[in-house]
């Protein structure tokens, strides 16, 4: 099966500071892949380079399309990459329902209305607050909204940057259970960057470990979860 996302020798950074030093990885359709790494390892930068928020060198192929410098972020979104950025990217002044409409921007109006109802069923708290400004939601609710907004565009791949950040453990558990379920039901592939390695590995198929801008370990999620080195470094056990 051809990978949905295939990245070869990608390099990226900010201005003259290079953060990612040639990494290669792939995500297969329907797969959950998790990227682990310490703070400053380059996880967020990697995500930004894939969705085109920052420029990158190297080859990125998504669903058969090779990205170039001219493949802007909005074009990549149109092709089926959704990116939930660090800090959730909530459109704080817009209502909850308008946030979802923005998520469905690339899709026909009738389908959008239908999808909104669907995500309201999945996250009933969002329905209760549909006309409230999204900035007034709690952190957990905003994270739910960010996930729902990303999925509104019917993406083939969702990039999730630290979905558990700032969330209470119970809410994190709920969120990851929901992510797993969405992945199973819709077949949407997920690429998750996460500090909460234990929780992320529990739902992932495969994992990569990134350190100072390079991939150092790659393997099945179960294997990595039981690997002594990984356990010591990222699971804290």
């Amino acid at each position, binding site marked *: 099966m051809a990978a949905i996302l295939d990245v070869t020798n990608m390099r990226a950074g900010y201005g003259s500071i290079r953060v990612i030093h040639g990494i290669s990885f792939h995500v297969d359709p329907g797969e959950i892949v998790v990227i682990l790494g310490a703070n400053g390892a380059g996880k967020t930068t990697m995500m930004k380079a894939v969705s085109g928020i920052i420029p990158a060198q190297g080859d990125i192929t998504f669903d058969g399309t090779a990205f170039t410098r001219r493949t802007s972020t909005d074009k990549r979104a149109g092709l089926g990459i959704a990116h939930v950025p660090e800090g959730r*990217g*909530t459109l704080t002044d*817009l209502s909850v329902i308008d946030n979802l409409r923005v998520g469905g921007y690339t899709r026909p109006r009738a389908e959008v209305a239908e999808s909104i109802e669907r995500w309201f069923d999945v996250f009933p708290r969002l329905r209760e607050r549909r006309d409230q400004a999204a900035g007034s939601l709690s952190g957990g609710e905003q994270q739910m909204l960010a996930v729902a907004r990303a999925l509104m565009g019917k993406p083939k791949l969702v990039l999730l940057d630290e979905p558990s950040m700032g969330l209470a453990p119970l809410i994190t558990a709920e969120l990851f259970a929901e992510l797993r379920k969405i992945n199973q039901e819709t077949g949407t592939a997920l690429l998750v960057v996460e500090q909460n390695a234990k929780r992320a590995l529990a739902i992932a198929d495969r994992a990569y470990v990134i350190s100072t801008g390079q991939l150092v370990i790659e393997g099945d999620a179960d294997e990595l979860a039981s690997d002594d080195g990984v356990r010591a470094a990222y699971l804290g056990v």
Partner: protein
Amino acid sequence: MELLLQRIIDGVGDGMIYGAIALALVLIYRVTGLVNFAQGEMAMFATFIVWWITRPDRFLGFIGDPQLRMAVGIFLGLGIGFVIGVVCERFIMRPFEKRPYIDQAMVTMGMYLGLSALAAYIFSVQPVAMESVFSAGGIPLGGANLTWSTIGLIVVFTSLSLLLRLLFTRTRFGLAMRATTNNAVSAQLSGINVKRTLMLGWGLASAVGGVAGAMLAPKLFLSPFMMQSVLLYAFAAAILGGLDSVPGAIVGGILVGLTQHLAGGYLFGSELALAAALLLILIVLLVRPQGLFGKVKVERV
């Protein structure tokens, strides 16, 4: 009594013009988060082009009836204003899009000066008369005179602001504009072409300004400096209404126009009318910093 009524009517009439330029300021602010100091001059420039094409010996000269010719001219003014806005954004503002807010505000200041000089160079330094689209005269109303021009201004700009409100709240393009203002990166990540949205936002604002200019010019004289005081009143109107509110801009404009004519007429004479408008801004900012119709921002993390 007649005088009071006349002052109210004149205040509302002028207020519609301030409101219209304020509307243009609000549009740019809502899309870019920027206060565009060149808004008045962009409108002035569009008005000069309308003036030029509607002269009897020019482009639209084949239309014999002057009022019909002006009506066509003003309609084309929408398009002319739009193009000016798009060109200003694409070639002047865009190179600075990643720069801090203050840099961009300075660029709009530069555009203000540049457009003013360019209009003087191309068209005329001397004020020129422009024909009105409205008939002279009006309806007598309790001893005062409600001119056709005032009625026209009220109708045109009230409907324009209602249309814009619908555009913002009901259309896909409106959603794109609101999303772009609020969080440009998130908008892009959802597939919105932010660059194009900004460009069209500028075009839209400038089109509104262009119509306002073309309707104002016959009341004053058309000159490269026509908009200078109008822009100040428009700023007052926009701040009064709340910088992000479309209906607020029009209501703010009317309040500023009324203040100008009533305070100018009864309290301190017309020389200090502008000061009265500024006093109004100060009071509103003290009592209700978000303006009369502006939204209070709420954000939890």
